């Protein structure tokens, strides 16, 4: 069996065979989502009074989770676009998964904004009466643009693989699949004109999507930074949020990659090298995050203007101290150590580091939102916030939806970028600087 055949077989395997465990897993996710839908129905009937949010801490788990999801959506952009631009060949087996995560995370994230609304029935007002002066509208614009762009960017490099599915699976699968691959393969025949056109399109998309992704998390941070709240009044917020987004995105990608590798036996394509390289990225972004913490807290902490002292006390010593120090030591320092020490620099160590990072980044979003709102504005006793079962249920349902969408995606679409991997394998075979004639990115740049 040639390398190419093995590769195709690996890419087709999730579609051709479905284990019982998969159905159990999907049923479990559906149950969690069902419970979340019930919780939301309670919220829709009674109002947001069923949450722990109140006038003084008026955002909580929903906004935290929204920011977190938008954050992990940066996985796809970084891995796929930035590494594609820098022509890092090792990225090829993991790009598709990264792009899946982006699209799915954005859909889940956008959902949480609507869940947080007091009047979800009026969500259309955002289009009917939208004012571009409002940071919320910047977010709506940025996120819808990003969803569109990331779907396009997921789709474009997938066309040759969809055509492969169309050709290889014809007659072997359900009619709806044959139809779907037929439509989505957009008459791909693999002739040189098509390769050139697609290459040009990918080049444009990958360059466009980077500023879009950066803008998205910047304006997400501006929802907070555009208010007169002292802990949020920071010029570093946008950059800090973008760095955190990529940090958690890489961590999520490592976790998803480890699971799919195990479940679909992709050991040949996703090797320890990929974990190691992504681990280095993780460690690098961990350092950026530590620097971000330093530059934010040292400048404000040195002066302790206004209510900053209150904020510092609650964050470092008081109510949020446990969360903050877990985030800093467990989420920024420890993962870096795990990745950099030679004896933990293996798949298990790096996955463990990623889990720590993801939890820590959620926690960070939580204390940014809640601790920021808790600082009293007038002479009153500071309020407290404790999420209710409704909020926890809906949040868990959100994560279950994320997992479900990924699980369904891998059953419908090719999880490996077959043609990109094949190309890379060929390039590795003949390292004498000769690019294949069909190299699309190159063709695109030459245009």
């Amino acid at each position, binding site marked *: 069996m040639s390398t190419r055949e093995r590769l195709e077989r690996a890419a087709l395997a999730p579609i051709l065979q479905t284990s019982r465990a998969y159905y159990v897993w999907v049923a479990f996710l559906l149950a969690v989502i069902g419970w979340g839908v019930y919780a939301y129905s309670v919220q829709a009937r009674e*109002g*947001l009074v*069923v949450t722990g949010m109140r006038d003084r801490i008026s955002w909580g788990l929903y906004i935290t989770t929204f920011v977190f999801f938008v954050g992990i959506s940066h996985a796809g952009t970084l891995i796929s676009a930035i590494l594609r631009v820098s022509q890092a060949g090792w990225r090829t087996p993991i790009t598709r998964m990264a792009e899946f995560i982006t699209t799915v995370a954005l859909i889940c994230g956008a959902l949480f904004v609507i869940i*947080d609304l007091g009047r979800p029935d009026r969500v259309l007002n955002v289009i009917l009466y939208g004012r571009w*002066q409002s940071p919320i509208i910047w977010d709506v614009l940025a996120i819808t643009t990003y969803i569109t762009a990331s779907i396009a960017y997921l789709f474009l490099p997938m066309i040759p693989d969809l055509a492969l599915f169309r050709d290889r699976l014809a007659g072997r699968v359900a009619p709806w699949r044959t139809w779907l691959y037929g439509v989505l393969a957009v008459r791909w025949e693999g002739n040189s004109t098509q390769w050139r056109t697609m290459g040009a399109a990918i080049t444009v998309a990958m360059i466009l999507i980077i500023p879009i992704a950066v803008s998205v998390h910047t304006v997400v941070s501006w929802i907070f930074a555009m208010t007169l709240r002292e802990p949020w009044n920071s010029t570093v917020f946008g950059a800090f949020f973008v760095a955190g987004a990529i940090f958690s995105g890489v961590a999520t990608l490592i976790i998803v990659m480890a699971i799919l590798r195990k479940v679909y036996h992709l050991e040949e394509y996703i090797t320890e090298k990929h974990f190691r390289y992504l681990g280095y990225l993780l460690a690098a972004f961990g350092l950026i995050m530590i620097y971000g913490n330093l530059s934010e807290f040292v400048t404000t902490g040195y002066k302790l203007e206004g209510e900053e002292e209150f904020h510092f006390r609650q964050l470092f010593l008081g109510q949020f101290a446990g969360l903050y120090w877990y985030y800093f030591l467990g989420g920024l320092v420890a993962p870096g150590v795990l990745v950099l020490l030679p004896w933990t620099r293996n798949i298990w160590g790096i996955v463990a580091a990623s889990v720590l990072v993801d939890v820590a980044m959620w926690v960070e979003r939580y204390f940014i939102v809640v601790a920021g709102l808790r600082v009293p504005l007038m002479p009153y006793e500071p309020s407290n916030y404790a999420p209710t079962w409704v909020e926890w249920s809906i949040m868990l349902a959100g994560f279950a939806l994320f997992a479900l969408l990924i699980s369904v995606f891998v059953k419908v679409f090719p999880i490996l970028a077959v043609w990109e991997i094949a190309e890379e394998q060929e390039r590795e075979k003949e390292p004498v600087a000769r690019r294949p004639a069909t190299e699309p990115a190159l063709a695109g740049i030459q245009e």
Partner: protein
Amino acid sequence: MNEKDGNQQRTSPPNQTSGGKVNRRGLLRVLGLTAFGLVPLPVLPRVLQAARGGAPTTRADAAAARTVDGRIRQWTMIIDLRYCDGCQSVGKPPQCTAACIEGHFAPEPMEWIQVFEAELPGEGTQFIPTPCQQCQNPPCVNVCPVAATFSTPEGTVLIDQNRCIGCRICMAACPYDRRFFNWGTAPTPPEARLADYSAEHQVPVKKGTVMKCDFCPDMARAGTLPYCVQGCPHDAIYYGDLEEDIATNGSVIVAASRFLSQNQAYRLKEDLKTKPRVYYIPGHGEAVGRDPFTKGRQTTTWPWIERAKGARVWKR
């Protein structure tokens, strides 16, 4: 290159597909496009209406109040803290808040004008009745995504609860903690449900929207003073018009500008440059004989809890 590619595509398919298939595909395409075109129809009238600038919601459409010579009035409030003892001498909860709640059916636990007790240098305290500050550079209006909260020509800030989507970014933006959310169906008396809603008179309440002090411009236009001014037992609150430079607490009429400058008036969090329309004259109730070391005030109550059926009470 692209053109050639297009030609290739255009010529090749008919050879590959049978006539019947093309027909079915064509039919499906027409059906799909029709469905796609029909979906937005229900919202189309609203889109058109919005595009024309008309709002299907209730706005403050009453004409702005004007002086005799036609200038638009600029409502203001001056709170003389020398006369405010947090109603300690009356032995009741703050009466400005109580009157506001009665008059507006302000739902529990909203204190649209709230009497905060602030520490003075030294051990004593002062009471600060705090309505919405009616900023002239309002952070809440700036961030609202749907213009549900807006500034009026009279210089007040109102909320249209028929448009508010309940995103609560205005609550995050307000530096004075003066915005309140209807987390559930707020407890109000049954008669409140009969009222005609307007942004200047936020009754009946609407679940999932934001509320706050509206500065009673409808009452001012009708020649009455706001509930809080009427309710104050010590006449500590003045209401007036900066345009005509006049303010009254119900018993005395003052020239607003002179009154402000002669008494070292200030505004809350002046350094934020939100330019509030509410001014304070420093004090701690000394003019009504309050000892600043007598701390505490009575807790505000809402009179209609028993009569509000099906309501769920929450704390701030």
